[in-house]
């Protein structure tokens, strides 16, 4: 039986954003098993993807170590690389979907399959990019007003449409440490996952802000349980946060930071009603696990590219000194200053079901929606022209005659609502 393979070697956020593409591929080719190659530390997480049959970890550290072994003569490197690939016992794939426009991913795709869809489709040395990959690169560079979400663009890269149903992850079969299990699996509370840290320093929310947010949640949500989420690197910060809170609040706080594997974290997030945080992998994991998300997007994070995937999520987009109706016109190129204030009370109000309240001046509220062309965010009730243009972009980029490497066609769509 022919098998297909999807390669996603990037970080947790990108892996989670690949779920719609995986789901659509599975729906489109139900009889063709789909396997996944992902970064080794994420492989246990990817085992939870129901539409993936086999997960192969790509051990970048091991590759790095092999590539830096003594000597420079080519043969031992080839032998070592062959050994690595052989040890993984990859089957031969009839097609490999490559989501990363990176030489390593392109090369891996060609090692594993004769036919590559996505980056490197014309050959490992061919500089030409397929239309959807070129689009993503253009978006990353121009940071314009595109409205096709990254996860939907991944679908485009794979040659499939966005999925009809938003895919989710279930991990309630994964065992938790006893003390966590007692709290998490006890069902009388409203869990609010708080994503404490971020891989990129400039995407971290100050601890004082989190303390303020936790205090208002506990004060104003009678059944609220704040679940702190993060990796081992944030353990100290989580303990510091606990220290700063009055002791009476601690019974309403569950500190999971650095205490869970990714599958265990998914289990915890499966029990949360909400997840709040900046644009990070755990935020998207929370969404995939069924929580509604409220993202605080600042620095280089952009709601239209990487907002939480699905319907009913919110994003507070930081826009210093900007009128709320003109988001598309501004180029968030990463040079924006850090927020001076945070939408703490406003986020609580969203959790309480009040989304009509006044907004803080530097933040815009966007809400997620979905249609046949994937998902999009709207700031208010009226569809803007950029949302409507998604259909044209899809048709243009997905057409068999789509012009490779030409960004002229969709550049107008990227900047179409800028004025």
């Amino acid at each position, binding site marked *: 039986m022919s098998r297909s393979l999807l390669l996603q070697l990037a970080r947790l956020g990108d892996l989670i954003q690949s779920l719609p593409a995986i789901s659509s591929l599975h729906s489109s080719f139900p009889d063709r098993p789909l396997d996944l190659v992902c970064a080794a530390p994420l492989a246990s997480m990817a085992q939870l993807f129901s539409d993936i049959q086999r997960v192969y970890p790509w051990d*970048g550290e091991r*590759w*790095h170590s*092999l*590539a*830096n072994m*003594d*000597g*420079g*003569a*080519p*043969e031992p*490197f*080839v*032998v*070592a*690389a*062959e050994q690595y*690939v052989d040890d993984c016992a990859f089957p031969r794939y009839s097609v490999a979907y490559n989501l990363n426009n990176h*030489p*390593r991913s392109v*090369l*891996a795709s*060609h*090692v594993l399959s004769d036919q590559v869809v996505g980056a490197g489709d*014309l*050959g*490992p*040395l*061919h*500089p*030409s990019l397929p239309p959807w990959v070129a689009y993503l690169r253009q978006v990353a560079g121009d940071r314009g007003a595109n409205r096709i979400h990254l996860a939907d663009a991944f679908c485009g890269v794979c040659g499939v449409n966005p999925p009809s149903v938003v895919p989710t992850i279930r991990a309630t079969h994964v065992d938790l440490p006893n003390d966590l299990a007692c709290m998490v699996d006890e069902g009388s509370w409203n869990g609010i996952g708080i994503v404490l840290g971020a891989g990129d320093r400039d995407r971290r929310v100050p601890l004082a802000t989190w303390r303020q947010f936790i205090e208002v949640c506990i004060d104003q949500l009678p059944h609220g349980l704040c679940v702190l989420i993060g990796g081992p690197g944030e353990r100290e910060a989580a303990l510091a946060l606990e220290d700063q809170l009055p002791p009476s609040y601690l019974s309403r706080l569950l500190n999971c930071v650095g205490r869970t594997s990714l599958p265990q974290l998914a289990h915890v997030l499966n029990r949360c009603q909400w997840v709040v945080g900046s644009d990070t992998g755990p935020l998207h994991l929370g969404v995939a696990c069924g929580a509604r998300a409220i993202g605080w997007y600042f620095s280089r994070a952009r709601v239209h590219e990487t907002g939480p995937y699905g319907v009913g999520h919110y994003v507070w987009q930081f826009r210093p000194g900007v009128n709320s109706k003109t988001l598309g016109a501004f180029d968030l190129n990463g040079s924006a200053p850090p927020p001076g204030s945070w939408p703490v009370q406003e986020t609580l109000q969203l959790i309480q079901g009040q989304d009509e309240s006044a907004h803080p001046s530097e933040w815009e509220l966007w809400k997620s929606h979905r249609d046949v062309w994937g998902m999009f965010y709207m700031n208010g009730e009226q569809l803007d022209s950029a949302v409507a243009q998604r259909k044209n972009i899809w048709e243009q980029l997905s057409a068999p005659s789509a012009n490779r490497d030409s960004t002229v066609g969709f550049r107008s769509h990227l900047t179409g609502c800028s004025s």
Partner: protein
Amino acid sequence: MNVFQENISILRSQDPALASHLLNTPGGLLSIYPAKSGLPTAVVNNRSIHSAYDPLREAEQWAAHHAKDCQAGEVLVVLGLGLWYHLEALFANVSQDSLIMVVVPNLQELVDGLAVRGLKGWGERVKWVWGDPESMAGQVAQQGQRVRLLTYEPALSLHADVYDAFRLQLRQQLAHRANGTLHVMVVGPIYGGSLPIGGYVVRALESLGHRVSWVDHSLHERGYQQLNTIRDDRLRMTVQQRFSDTLGVISLAHVAEDPPDVVLAMSQAPLSMAVLEQMRRKKVLTAMWFVENFRHLTYWQQMIGGYDFWFVMQQAACLDAFKQAGASHVSYLPLAADPSIHQRVNLTEHEEDELKADVSFLGAGYRNRREILPALLGHEWTFKLWGNEWDNCGTLAKVLQRNGARIDTPTSVKIFNGTTVNINLHSYTKSGFDPDGDSVNPRTFELASCGAFQVIDHRTLLPDLFDDTMMKVVRTPEEFVPAINTSLREPEQRRAMAEASKQQVMTSHTYVHRMETLLSAMGLASPDRIGAILQGERQAESLLARSRESPELIPLLNTFPKKSRVELVDMARAIRLKGPEAQLKREELLILMMDEYRQEKRDFL
């Protein structure tokens, strides 16, 4: 037939001459007695050569430790004989493709062993190397394979001088046979005496065919010296240290951009321990040629663990001090000359007017020179003093040239050529000659290379480099004047000595010789990296011959000139040149993949 006779019979089948010599050699060097385990063990001068309890177990541990590094096809040269428990264990632990050569420094020692321990089962298959050090080294070098030295220390010390001579000879002979090319990054100082030497080193390495990257920090001298205007000592030193650290990081960036096989730092190169540690993590071998007096400049003590190899211009006490401080490899490497620069030149009439003299001295105004050189004034000859740091030099002021300006290399060569008797007085910060004076300064080699005659103060290491037919050596300051008088009166002898010293440089003391020796020493200590490259194992023809496991690489290897060195990066480059439409084979894809990871630089700085 007893053990000895049986052993002789085994040796005769392999080396009749050796067997014959052994029959006429008395034993008695080793005192043999039974160990606790019952096996024979040996003692010399109250020092045990093998364990007094269990020599077999000890030998197995030694062999296991060494065998893990040995690779098939290598020549394993064992130094240290004793009762060869370790040889037997080594034989059992290494690939049958490896040739084991055992250096026999003294036949008496072998005779003692032959009387008590059998060779059967393994002794037939090792090669016994005997004779004088030069011929023994020749036997090893002519194998034409990668050489790995394995030392059994307890027995080594019995004949340390023979082994040292053997190693020196082997280094030189392998150096002459080396045909592979390395990428050497030479890191120079910001300024100072080792700066021009760095330039000579670069030229020498290039003339040997190696690829050289010269990290020239003298470009930053002006900025560095500008910091001397900061009056606060602590602040100035802090800023200078930061400046120096930055230059170290710049060196590291060069390494990251174009990784060399070897980083060769000259004395005072601004490489901190942190930078060296980073290079070690990236598996770049580092060496320092410490062309300073180790007693006067002691910063080497803080840097000792930073470099993989140290080369010093002093012997005995210096080598001991470096070893005791923790140097893993330290070797004697005297200074030299560059004959393309230090050569005979004709002076123009104008130059003769300024530079010519009966007697000259060129050098900085150290205390001993200030005290000794005035004795050369007031004679019938003309005397000129050249160099800097001669402020307040008293009566010498009237012969000081160019107001004590620093003399550049081209001018110094002309001065050497224009002087009948060049005075070469080694610097010393006290009176007279340095009683510990051992190393020989660069001027000695440079004068000789120019074919210039010199009168030089005695140095303990001088006789190994030049004999007294090549230069006039004085042992006390008082001998200078008579030596000059004699030399001025004997032009034929003077010319003959100068010519002999020049020939000596050409034969043995150029920077090319030194770099051959330096790389050969590194090759011997690092047989599977530097040694392999020097042996030409990375050349296309050698790779082709050894493409057993990946015959798919052969077509690609055939695209390279046979003698060119081919690394992973070269193959990756060749693959990429195939163009965008190329359909790549699996091996080619994997080469590109490895190259992608190998070029990762983000963890470098």
